[in-house]
């Protein structure tokens, strides 16, 4: 669906034309039907990468293909693409209804009044349909952006920080809407800092750092990569097994981690020492932990990227 090969983007700023390397050899692939998340720190290059996929920015070098075509402004390929920008750079002189109608009409198809009304209703914008966008809050503008994405059933959806500025109820509803869109077969590419949200929605993730993809894999692989150990919680009774590590006492119980291959040894140890076993579960790594380890882990990223980058 999207293929980016070694794309580099260099901006020149100021009188001295100082070069700023926004992307430094970014390579990634989004397959059809993926819910693909781009994550990274501020300034890592996530939005720049998305601009390249949308044809808003031409890479200094490298190649980008979207649905087999090189993206450029206003190309026919966009009849199957919807985009929700990070900043609400909308036509502020239009009303909510006019804006949704205008953006929907730009697909070259006449949009029925009912489709517009349904879309506004779905996002709770119906009562504000005559309000100008310049008078709307940031969250409302974001909903307008979402509404225009929902009118046509596009095959590819780009979302740049989609839940920024939305209230918690709208976030949950939007998440459900995104799930529906993905289940009907659309490919979704999303930038977000809300890692818990990505864990809930995405099936593939690319971690971008300093303009490069340092890790790219299925989310399940990324998170189970460390599932080589078990967390155990028990009431100690004298000695502790020598393979228990990261042990800490929490009141009367001890919590620690044991290697996967020593699970049966630990069970035997617990039986022979009559330990009160409270919990024994596969250790899970959250996306946040993984992200932090990769991006902030010193030499970690290089090792991880070698392992994870496909």
């Amino acid at each position, binding site marked *: 669906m999207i293929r980016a090969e070694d794309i580099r983007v260099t901006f020149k700023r100021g009188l001295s034309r100082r070069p700023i390397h926004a992307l430094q050899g970014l390579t990634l692939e989004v397959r059809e039907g993926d819910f693909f998340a781009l994550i990274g720190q501020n300034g890592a290059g996530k939005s720049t990468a998305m601009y390249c996929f949308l044809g808003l920015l031409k890479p200094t070098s490298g190649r980008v293909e979207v649905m087999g075509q090189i993206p450029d402004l*206003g190309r026919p390929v966009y009849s199957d*693409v919807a985009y929700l920008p990070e900043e609400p750079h909308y036509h*502020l002189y239009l009303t909510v209804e006019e804006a949704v*109608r205008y953006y929907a009409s*730009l697909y070259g198809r006449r949009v029925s009044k009912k489709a517009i009304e349904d879309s506004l209703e779905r996002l709770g914008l119906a009562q504000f349909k005559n309000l100008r966008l310049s008078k709307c809050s940031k969250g409302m503008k974001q909903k307008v952006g979402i509404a225009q994405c929902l009118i046509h059933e596009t095959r590819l959806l780009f979302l740049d920080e989609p839940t920024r500025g939305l209230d918690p109820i709208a976030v949950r509803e939007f998440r459900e809407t995104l799930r529906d869109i993905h289940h009907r077969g659309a490919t979704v590419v999303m930038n977000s800092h809300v890692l818990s949200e990505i864990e809930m929605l995405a099936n593939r993730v690319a971690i971008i750092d300093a303009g490069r993809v340092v890790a790219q894999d299925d989310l399940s692989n990324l998170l189970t990569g460390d599932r080589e150990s078990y967390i155990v919680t028990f009431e100690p009774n004298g000695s502790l097994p020598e393979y228990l590590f990261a042990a800490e006492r929490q009141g009367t119980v001890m919590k620690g981690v044991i290697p996967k291959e020593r699970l049966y040894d630990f069970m035997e140890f617990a039986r022979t020492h009559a330990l009160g076993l409270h919990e024994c579960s596969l250790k899970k790594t959250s996306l946040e932990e993984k992200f932090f380890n990769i991006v902030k882990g010193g030499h970690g990223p290089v090792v991880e990227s070698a392992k994870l980058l496909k």
Partner: protein
Amino acid sequence: MAELLRANLVAHLSFYRRSRLLLAFLILFAVLTALATVPQFFVDSGVQNFNKLQEIFGTINFFLKLFAAGLGLFIVSSHLRSRNLKMVFTKPCPPWIWLGSAFLSAVLVAFLLNAVVLGAVTALSLLWHLPVRSGLAFVAADTFGISIGLAAYLMLLATVLHPAIAAILAIILNADMFYEGFVWARSAIHAGNQSAGARVLEYMFHFLYIIAPIMHPFSRNTANIYVSLRVMHGEWKYLLYSLGYSLGLSAFCCLVALSALHRKRHI
């Protein structure tokens, strides 16, 4: 394509309708026009009604041209500066349709305003028992042609420059000024100044005069029509030439603006 054009046209017309800056300009022009024309109604020092009509028509037409230039400037600069074109170009709407519809919308508004002014001066002619002269239609059509050329020129400047710089360039550094400079440099040379600097200035002003768009390319041939509001047989062709020049200039400006629009980063 028709749906894209229609959608963009509707949006652009909404922009004109709701732009406070354009409204402020319109009010300013109305006030200035009133200040320039209302005294004509009270002066009765043997001045004919025809002269009053001609004065009023000339003043309003001058402001109409400025207003049309403002339309071209604001429609492009406002959208570029608010960075909302990313919402347009990430849909199957190519830049030429957006730019073409922006130009068409300016043409529509300019046409409407010119038609209203022509209607008003025709009514005034009838009110003052003056014959409705064909020159009124000629001047109105010529003003319309100049307006669309100006709108396209300002659209081009707004695409590549900051709107303030674009306005300054259009108001001050125009063909008339370069022509004045050329005449001044040539006079200096004829008066005996043989320095290389004077020669360079003469060539430079001449070059700039040639490349800068001329708003009244046939002013020598049509000056009499503007004064008498009569069109002699054989003078209508200058209206066609003038409209042709404006359309050619507009097409050139739109093509260059389109190329600049493609090169811009809409992020």
